[in-house]
């Protein structure tokens, strides 16, 4: 795997990889950092509040974040986030398979707050 320089980290995709799945109208995206040192940065950048703020029209339900500390991963569970789900959605991607790249496209919260 390529390791981009630390000065080139702007997006979640620069430090993590992700996979999306669907159940009904609920989407889940699991996200894992390549380097455990970046886990705090990921946790700071991908929060339920941020998801609701960034995608208010898409993610209409509750967002729950499960933290898997020892594997350095997050599981985002986003309710009412699939435009009705595979039964009703008219999105070309009715399963929301691409939602992983929606999350990976978020900018990192690199402000260390020092």
């Amino acid at each position: 795997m390529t390791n981009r320089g630390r000065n080139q980290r702007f997006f979640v995709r620069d430090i993590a990889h992700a996979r999306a799945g669907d159940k009904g109208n609920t989407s889940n995206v699991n996200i894992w950092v390549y380097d455990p040192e970046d886990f705090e940065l990921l946790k700071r950048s991908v929060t339920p509040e941020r998801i609701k703020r960034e995608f208010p029209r898409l993610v209409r339900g509750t967002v729950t974040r499960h933290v898997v500390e020892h594997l350095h991963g997050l599981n985002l569970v986003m309710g009412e986030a699939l435009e009705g789900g595979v039964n009703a959605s008219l999105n070309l991607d009715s399963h929301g398979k691409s939602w992983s790249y929606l999350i990976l496209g978020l900018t990192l919260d690199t402000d260390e707050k020092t």
Partner: protein
Amino acid sequence: MAIANGTFRIGTGAGFSADRLDPAVDLAKRGQLHVMVLECLGERTVAFAHRDRMADPRRGYNALLERRMSALLPACRASGTVIITNMGAANPRAAAERTRDVARTLGISGLKIACIEGDDVTKLVQPDQPFMDEPGTLADIGRPVVGMNAYLGADAIIPTLEAGADVVIGGRLADPSMYLAPLMRHYGWQNSELAKLGAGTLVGHLMECGMQITGGYFADPGMKDVPDLADCGYPIAEVSADGSAVITKLPETGGRVNEATVKEQLLYEVHDPASYLTPDVTADFSRVTVKNLGEDRVRVEGAAGRARPEKLKVTVGFDAGVLAEAGVSYAGAAAGERGRLAAGIVEKRLKEIHRISSPIRIDLIGAGSLFATAGKTRTDSEDVRLHVALRTTEREQADLMLWEVESLLCCGPAGGGGYRGVITPAVETKSVLIDRGLVKPTFEILVT
């Protein structure tokens, strides 16, 4: 059969209804497998299968069943590998009979094919049954039911293995249960050994989507490169008596197994990692460890389990009319503006002139389609495709939409080309719960 290091070897030969066949044949020949599982059923797949069966009582099983069995039976027979599959879909009996015909044609005699029935609970579910995860009851849908299937667990599969089945064919067998059942049978795990049931369920969960753990659904050039995806290998699980397992694949196949591929699959379609519900157990994946052993080998262990859910999940399929899709492309200067003009024309004609009230969506592929609702669009594309989608229970509306989009070729913006339109049948699925006592799986063995 020579088995390496005393583990129980399970391979995946399909992870969804349209999965590849040639790597499954390779795995059957070279994998030294005890069991090969072909998982081919999604919630909507089974609803479509019911429609097929209504049209022809001899159908309603996986459309690739004959091809898969023709290719896999000789290799599995030679290696003593048991096949377990839910390719029976809405008609396990017809699938078993067809498999028997295939085996006879191939000259395979004495093959025992188990057919599991009892997942079709259409006659057992009441119309006032509330939905599992949303308000309302089945009676609220107001559309014809096409089928209702309860998820069957390992306890429906184990008796067929005890009866010596070489091929086990069911309908709505729960995905991980097809892996857990042979493990319980081989290692003598009891229903009370919840940690082992959790471990076996973890194996099934990781394996059930086939190549999603060996490099499929994973590659991202420059970040996550995967070698030779065109020749990707299906996964193998080498499972020990305590339920710990090594996930790997055949040598000389494409793809990759590493901690990253395993972790992405670990929580695929999982909500709370500590509560993964199956008919067999409430599995807990929250403390699972994932360790890279090198050479496409990853060890997973640490799954736990709690008591299984009291009730079984039932998928109810309804006829949902059709999904109509049509498109025209625009390229070159101001392609996006011409595409947006076309979108406005279609919207006005469908809604204001033809008064279509069914849900319509109009996207500009290349300028923001998948992420449109997320607010991600772009205006600089010089290659966009107008895409119009409509769900309706009235076929005439679907035909009318296609006609309107096609008419853009002469009546729309400049330079539009490449019209295509397609109308496909649609189903809708809902979930309800049923008492376990009402669901009584049975099996029968057909012998060639």
